């Protein structure tokens, strides 16, 4: 993965660019004129795109970033109120696009980022040329006449499970990080592992992700979009993909032979091929 933060700063005229770059660990690569932005899903960080993003670097200027509290973002920038809904995360996306003055962006969002990108595109449609959603879901919890795949108690169970998986170090180390903002090496140590997340953030991100209901927003999307739907995705079942296609204007649905929830990691070749197919299609 080629990353060049210095180039990013030079490319930008916006005074907040440096601040946003650090906050969201924004990285640029690629040589194209057009811009492609990759947004990671819940549970990981931008490194999950490493098998897919390079395939677009010849034709696109590729932008990747970490949401606040994930990966190598500035964990101390987490604001429970701002990130209390997906709109706060959508604002991160818009902040990056504004700070570096990016337009006509192809936005590729995995999982919850599909909805984040969609919300951002409703706010500022001119910034986007297309949305590519990988394994999206507008609502994870079952509702009358709608199968999201989960009951509320499943999500509560997930929160408990995550707490247990973090309790070992979160109980001791995380408060140290919180109370010692000057001691960057502590945070760095935590962040050195892949898919590192701040346990405080993760808990709220999980809540916001899995309890969000964006079904009412789908009709407001004006930017053309493409859905890549996995087979046997236990997070976003096929019925959800069909629901999205029927509820969203100007969208196409492609069924992948890839199984699971992370085709960009398990089946990068098919993911790349389908993305290219989407991009060739007239919007």
């Amino acid at each position, binding site marked *: 993965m080629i990353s060049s933060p210095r180039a990013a700063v030079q490319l930008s005229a916006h005074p907040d660019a440096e601040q946003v770059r650090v906050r969201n660990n924004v990285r640029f690569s690629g040589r194209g004129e057009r811009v492609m932005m990759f947004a990671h899903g819940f549970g990981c960080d931008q490194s999950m795109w*490493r098998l897919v993003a390079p395939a677009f670097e010849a034709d696109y200027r590729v932008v990747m970033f970490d949401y606040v509290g994930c990966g190598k973002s500035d964990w101390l920038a987490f604001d429970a109120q701002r990130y209390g809904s997906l709109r706060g995360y959508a604002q991160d996306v818009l902040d990056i696009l504004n700070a570096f003055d990016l337009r006509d962006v192809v936005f590729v969002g995995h999982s919850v980022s599909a909805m984040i990108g969609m919300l951002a595109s409703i706010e500022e449609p001119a910034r986007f040329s297309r949305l590519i959603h990988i394994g999206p879901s507008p609502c994870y919890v079952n509702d009358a006449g709608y199968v999201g795949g989960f009951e509320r108690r499943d*999500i509560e169970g997930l929160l408990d499970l995550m707490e247990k*998986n973090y*309790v070992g170090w979160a109980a001791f180390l995380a408060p140290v990080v919180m109370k010692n903002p000057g001691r960057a090496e502590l945070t760095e140590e935590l962040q050195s592992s*892949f*898919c590192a997340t701040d346990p405080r953030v993760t808990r709220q991100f999980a809540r916001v992700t*899995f309890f969000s209901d964006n079904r009412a927003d789908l009709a407001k999307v004006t930017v053309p979009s493409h859905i890549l739907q996995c087979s046997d995705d236990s997070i976003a079942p096929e019925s959800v993909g069909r629901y999205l296609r029927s509820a969203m204007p100007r969208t196409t649905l492609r069924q992948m032979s890839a199984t699971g*929830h992370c085709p960009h990691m398990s089946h990068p070749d098919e993911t790349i091929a389908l993305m290219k197919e989407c991009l060739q299609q007239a919007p």
Partner: protein
Amino acid sequence: MKDLDPLLDSAPCGFLVVGDDGCILLANTTTAEMLGVANAVALVGCHVDVLLSTPSRIFYQTHVFPTLCLQGRVHEVYVALIGRGGEEVPVLLNAKRRTEGERDVSDWVLVPMRQRNELENEILKARQVSEAASRAKDQFLALVSHELRSPLSVILNWATLLSRGEPDVSTLKRGLDAIERNARVQSRLVDDILDEVRTQTGKLRLELVELDARPILSTVLEGVAPAARAKTIDLAGDLPSEKLFVRADPDRLHQVLWNIVQNAVKFTPPGGRVRAAMRSSDAWVEAAISDTGRGISPQFLPYVFERFRQEQAPLDRAESGLGLGMAISRALVELHGGSISASSSGLGQGSTFIVRLPALQRPATMAASP
């Protein structure tokens, strides 16, 4: 299915080979035993999602699998498997990804952790309790500062006003009254805090004497009467003619009854009624204070006597106070060998507080006193 090394097949941990698509390619007999499945072959070909509890499945798909792809391995991940009977089988998972011919697979080692899981649940619960306690303490500190500052600013304002120029006699009197009243309020707050600290450190001491409990309640009622009159609350006592002997610290018993009666008046709207009765009941002397006030919600009732707890959130409280009075009262009553309880049919339904102290049948010293 490939044959599994007999050692691996019966190793004291579960072993699986899982494809990137989640399909189980190999399973050992120990895994089958952990799940209550007849034999390991039955697991082969199943999707790993089927073996995981729903929360574990989400965690696997969103956290474990991506990390496994990027890092090549994961260590000590807690997940719950679902046994054949639907029961949860908590395990620790270590997994390592490798290439096998054309495809990527992961080797999973599953270590059952039923006991450790129970222990961790307890730790988790204890942590949540301690976090809640710490939050309550923070709120309490904010509240103490606020409560101490209000009378202080009245005192300071009056002192400044009176020291400027030459106030006339009525202004002077009004000012001094206000200063005295607020200083008393503050002194009571400090007393409560000190009592609270003493309770916590076990340093609260009683000066026990044998006494008739009735006059103490009478004094309390007289003391609270002005406040009740000001709110047009009908406050009355119901005391028997015979003496009710207990072994008690008179000041502390007064404090307890005063806390309860004063609270009853505070939380009863104008026009309401407060009754304080005292009687002998078996081996106990019982004081029952009931009111027609706003009552206590069933959710809050269990916490009435807990420290730092008040039914209203601190920011939208109409009445002031530290939320310590009831906790101190309980500690004091228990030091007397008695008990205190609260009951209410719910919000708006009034409430009843009952204090019970062990009755003295034949007071030795009391008989000799005049």
